[in-house]
């Protein structure tokens, strides 16, 4: 049985249909990359899995159990943790407090404040600083740490490299590689196609709320993904943007 599966999921924002009948599943230990243009529905899909959006139709299953009507805070306890787009830290609270919050409903496990600080050593001196005063990279590290504190079975990462300098992105991804190596199941949304393909086992490309392409990251060519990305595979491939 797949660890997490999504069946014919439909999510609306008012009249706008952001996700239109998406299905996929992910196995334990797998890393899945969601790519696609802005507005393709990646973030909405991720947030629906985490329980931040109530779907209009379809189901979300974890280990076969139907989560569709479970509120977001209880999904954390069942093993789903989201690192939201824009990090969404509690800026009036310290790094440590943000991390401890991650443990509110989390599962028992190995993660602790110290272990997060070991993973991101540059956070250690900022432990008691309000997160509103942190740099972008430190904030992102805190956001990832906060999600890990709940000892998730599935970690959902939404645009973790957004707004960070390339050097910091390298560091964040180095840390993620460690998580992947330790067997954490990850779904990540990433704008940087090269990074998405290199870090993941499988890739799903979304277009206008639907799955446009799905395949193993090693097997799909960058060219194919690019075409799916822009919705060109149905039309004549004119000039494919680089």
């Amino acid at each position, binding site marked *: 049985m797949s660890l997490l599966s999504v069946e014919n999921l439909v999510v609306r924002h008012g009249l706008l249909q952001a996700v239109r009948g998406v299905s996929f599943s992910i196995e334990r230990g797998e890393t899945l990359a969601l790519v696609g243009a802005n507005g393709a529905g990646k973030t909405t899909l991720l947030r629906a899995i985490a329980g*931040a959006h109530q779907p209009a139709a379809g189901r979300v299953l974890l280990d076969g159990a139907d989560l569709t009507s479970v509120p*977001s*805070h209880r999904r954390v306890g069942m093993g789903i943790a989201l690192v*939201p787009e824009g990090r969404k830290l509690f*800026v*009036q609270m310290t790094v440590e*407090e943000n991390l*401890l919050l991650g443990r*509110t409903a989390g599962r028992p496990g190995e993660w602790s404040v110290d272990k997060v600080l070991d993973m991101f050593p540059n956070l250690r001196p900022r432990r008691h600083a309000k997160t509103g005063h942190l740099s972008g990279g430190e904030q992102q590290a805190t956001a990832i740490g906060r999600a890990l504190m709940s000892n998730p079975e599935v970690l959902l990462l939404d645009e973790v490299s957004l707004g960070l300098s390339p050097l910091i992105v390298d560091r964040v991804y180095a840390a993620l590689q460690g998580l992947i190596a330790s067997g954490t199941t990850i779904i990540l949304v990433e704008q940087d196609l090269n990074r998405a393909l290199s870090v993941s086992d499988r890739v799903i490309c979304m277009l206008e709320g639907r799955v446009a392409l799905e395949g193993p990251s090693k097997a799909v060519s960058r060219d194919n993904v690019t075409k799916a990305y822009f919705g060109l595979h149905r039309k004549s491939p004119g000039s494919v943007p680089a």
Partner: protein
Amino acid sequence: MSNQIIQGILLGGYYALIACGLSFMFSVMRIINLAHGSLAVFAAFALWWLASRYHIPPFVGLLIVLPLMAAIGWALQRFLLERSARGGTLLPILTTFGLAIVIDNMLFEQFGADTRSLAPYIGSLSYASWEWPGSIYVGKLAVIMFATAVILLGGLQLFLTRTRLGRSIRATSEDPDTAGLVGVDARRANAVAASIAMVTVGLAGAFLGMRATFDPYAGAPQLLFAFEAAVIGGAGSLWGTLVGGIVLALAQTLGAQVHPQGFLIGGHAVFLVVLFVRLSTSGLGLRGLLRLPSRSAS
């Protein structure tokens, strides 16, 4: 004069008590509860009823009334505020105002127009005093009141920073959606916060009844005192409400020196002056007088 200043400072303890629940609830749920004062008067009546009918001393009666207030807070949040807050920021003002009218008139229906006091039920405490150096007499009740305010504010501060539930409440106040995503039950956090606020209201009602008289329509002035103390104290920390309460009480004491009817005028005037200074120094960026945290995430 120094005697009056000390009395004023101690009275500030009462205002801090009544204000801290109002600003606590506002900072967590962004709701100004216009039934705040009426609920304090309700608690005072409940204690009076227990004392006059069943001879339960008010301090013992608190053991019954405070849990009752906590339950009321929980129900208030679950059945009224949660629902009306979904209709926007203006609706809760109307809902809680309507609730205040209901409470005031129900109290009138039940207890009549007579003014009551808890003073007869607390023995010598209502008039006993200590003599301090410089032949200053301070009422024991006033000192207890002030000490309660300090302990309550300190306790709340510790609770909010040191406990998991306290952190959950702070996280919910900053961003309820994200709080849910990290595992905080925002509805529960809000209900707990409302319960805590109502417990503080219950305490304030108890001291209102012990230090003075009250009647069914005494809720409105208590609400105004609470609001004024909270705004004068300003945003930032719970300790601000203590400062605000003291400033309000001192202004009232000073007002009473100037004119026989100057007590209330002095309080309102200092509130408006503080407001004016705050508005003219903060520029257009003023988003809220009472709010503690800013809502923007990153």
